């Protein structure tokens, strides 16, 4: 009996460690499903973020055409990394509108001049209010919105080259 007790701690540890090993060996699931998917875009009206492009309101997103809404900022490094993918999406015919978060008109204009302008309209979200209302926690973040103004997809972080095809498909499905 006392022999059993002596080795019990080792047995418990081996069982525990095996479970941990198993958990570690399984690939982690990294895609996050937002609670906002399936919900309507909150009502908003934003002034233009820079001269030469119109501002944006929730009514613009409910006119029958799907959109990709991209939260970005000129001060955000990953947004620069994302710019080429947005260009590819725009060239593929995806209607992209932007939300400039906590930014200034001059710096937004400079950002677009430097990294390309895939946007049809950009609203200025100066206090991150819309961003927070959309359940977004950082830049860049993108939402696929269908023609009725309902959120269909949320991608957190920069859009990588391998994500482009999926987003084009999501926009097509949202039609």
């Amino acid at each position, binding site marked *: 009996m*006392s*022999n059993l007790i*002596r*080795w019990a*701690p*080792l047995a418990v*540890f*081996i069982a*525990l*460690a095996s*479970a*941990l*090993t*198993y*958990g*570690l060996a*399984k690939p*982690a699931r990294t895609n996050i499903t937002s609670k906002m998917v399936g919900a309507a875009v909150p009502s908003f009206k934003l002034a233009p973020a820079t001269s030469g492009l119109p501002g944006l309101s929730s009514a613009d997103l409910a006119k029958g055409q799907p959109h990709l809404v991209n939260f970005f*900022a000129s*001060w*955000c*490094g990953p947004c620069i990394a994302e710019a080429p993918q947005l260009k590819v999406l725009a060239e593929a015919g995806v209607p992209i509108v932007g939300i400039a978060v*906590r930014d200034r008109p001059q710096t937004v204009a400079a950002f677009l001049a430097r990294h390309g302008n895939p946007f049809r309209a950009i609203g200025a979200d100066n*206090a*991150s*209010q819309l961003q*927070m*209302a959309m359940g977004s*926690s*950082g*830049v860049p973040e993108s939402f696929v919105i269908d023609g009725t103004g309902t959120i269909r997809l949320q991608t957190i972080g920069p859009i990588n080259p391998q994500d482009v095809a999926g987003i084009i498909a999501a926009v097509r499905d949202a039609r």
Partner: protein
Amino acid sequence: MIAEAGLAALWLGAALCALQLIVATLGVRGEVQLAATVRPVAIGQAALTVFAFGMLIWLFVRVDLSVLLVAENDHSEKPLLYRFAATWGNHEGSMLMWVTILGLAGAAIALFERRLAERTLTATLGGQAAIALGFYAFLLFASNPFARISPAPAEGQGLNPLLQDPGLAFHPPTLYLGYVGLSVAFSFAIGALVTRDVGPAFARAMRPWVLAAWIFLTLGITAGSYWAYYELGWGGWWFWDPVENASLMPWLAATALLHSVTVLATRDGLRAWTVMLAVVAFSMSMIGTFLVRSGILTSVHAFAVDPRRGTFLLALLFLYIGGALALFGARIGTVREGARFNLVSREGALVANNLLLSAVLGIVLVGTLYPLIVEAVTGTKLSVGPPYFNAAAGPLALILVALIGVGPLLRWRRDALMPLLRRVAPAAVLAAVVLVGVKFAAPRMHILPLLGLALAIGAALASVAPLWRRNLLRTPLFVWGMVVAHFGIAVSLAGIACDSSFTVEKLVAARVGETVQVGPYQVHFAGLAPTFGANWQALEATLEARRGAGDALVLKPQARAYWSPPTETSESAIHTALDGQLYTVLGKAAGEGRWQLRLWWKPFVTLIWAGGGLIALGGALALLGRVRRGRRRPQEDWS
């Protein structure tokens, strides 16, 4: 060159560590001449790790962006303190700190340990080297902090803004001192098992190390709790978050060890159990590190998500814990059973304390790992929240506090029930009076906090009872330490009970100019303005809080945005009064010019951390007393 010098020192340190292990092994086998070199080798190894760590700090302070780790975690706009703290605010740096503290602990054993038998000491230093060697390998092969990047970026990526806080700058070092301090207890246990030398002398030698580690763990947990409380802006002080549990579990094991080692030192009882606890305590430190560092758990503050490193750490875990438990199984049979004692005795109370602490440890461990295991087996993601932990661990914790009131009043070896009851009676009566009084004053109070408050007050009285009729000046320091630590537990429990029962919370959408009543305060929303810091911008609310007819105090909670990396945080503003805290947070815009304000009145919440401070102070007094007494005479009689 700085980075290369650091890396070279790390390799040399690893080599010396391997030498330390070899020399210790041969020394234990009888090569007495070789054994004498173990101490200087351990000291040299520590010096090299300190040198390497110093080089890394230097790289961070001068923002050397040609080093990958610095580029990823540092930023030239960051205040000096956080450039400093950024050294360990990341995976590689914190692992280097871990190895440095391991080295320092080994050097401290080599320099100061005079009570342990020479052969056991050699084995202990060998154990310490074996642990360190694995972590050296982990650093050098999987987490090199000195790797260069080419071309060097123009600017660094900064540090998680949540970590840009003076509290958190010093929280990890404190906690690590605790974790790694337990490695000494572990090495002692290994040493004692190897030389079959488990007895009172071994316990007396180990006790100061356990005490020191336990003090740092206590401080680290207390500071971490206060940090989470004011920095996360949720108004809570404990979330049963896996990362918090990772620090609580070694603390619970160390607390049990601290009590059982006293039984072993004083009465030569609980031999196998004490050795077991020493192994478990450091195992919990390692499991905690593993959980936080491997990315196996997702948590609000688990960083460095990397399964490859997780695999490496898991291998170390297998090796050390599995190895130690196997050694335990093989050797403990040859350790003679310790002295026997009556159930009603100081030893009996300490055994009850150990069983309860172990049960709480089991509950926390199961709650932390259960979601992992369920996911591994069934694929379903679930989380175990505060309801489980509170319901399962709460009652046991309350019994433990009751035991604080009883245990120290018991005599060693055997005691009688009736005289004991007489000694405990005043505290029990006080607790009963409080129980009835509070039940009458606040009839809707939940049962656990109500019991908690009554027990806390009873235990506070009982914890100072050992000083009763004693010459206070001639009372040994370690008795003072016990009294202060137990009193601290009562103080913390009182704070917890008050916070969970009497907190007033107001969530309002207010316009500038409006006034909100929360608890005894009238909070006037006086203004809202943008503001800037070194690397952030924020919206700042101005709140004027009045209590009765007094002057207004101004609180300025902020909603902050950091731009490198882009992160938003809410900076709470807290006013501390004698009887509690007014806690304010600025939330989101609520439309139509309204802003969400979250206001709490938290009566006596500060007692929670004041208690934590007292517990650590008690530990420090006990440590001082033990070290002094240990110097004066080798034998002690504490009855």
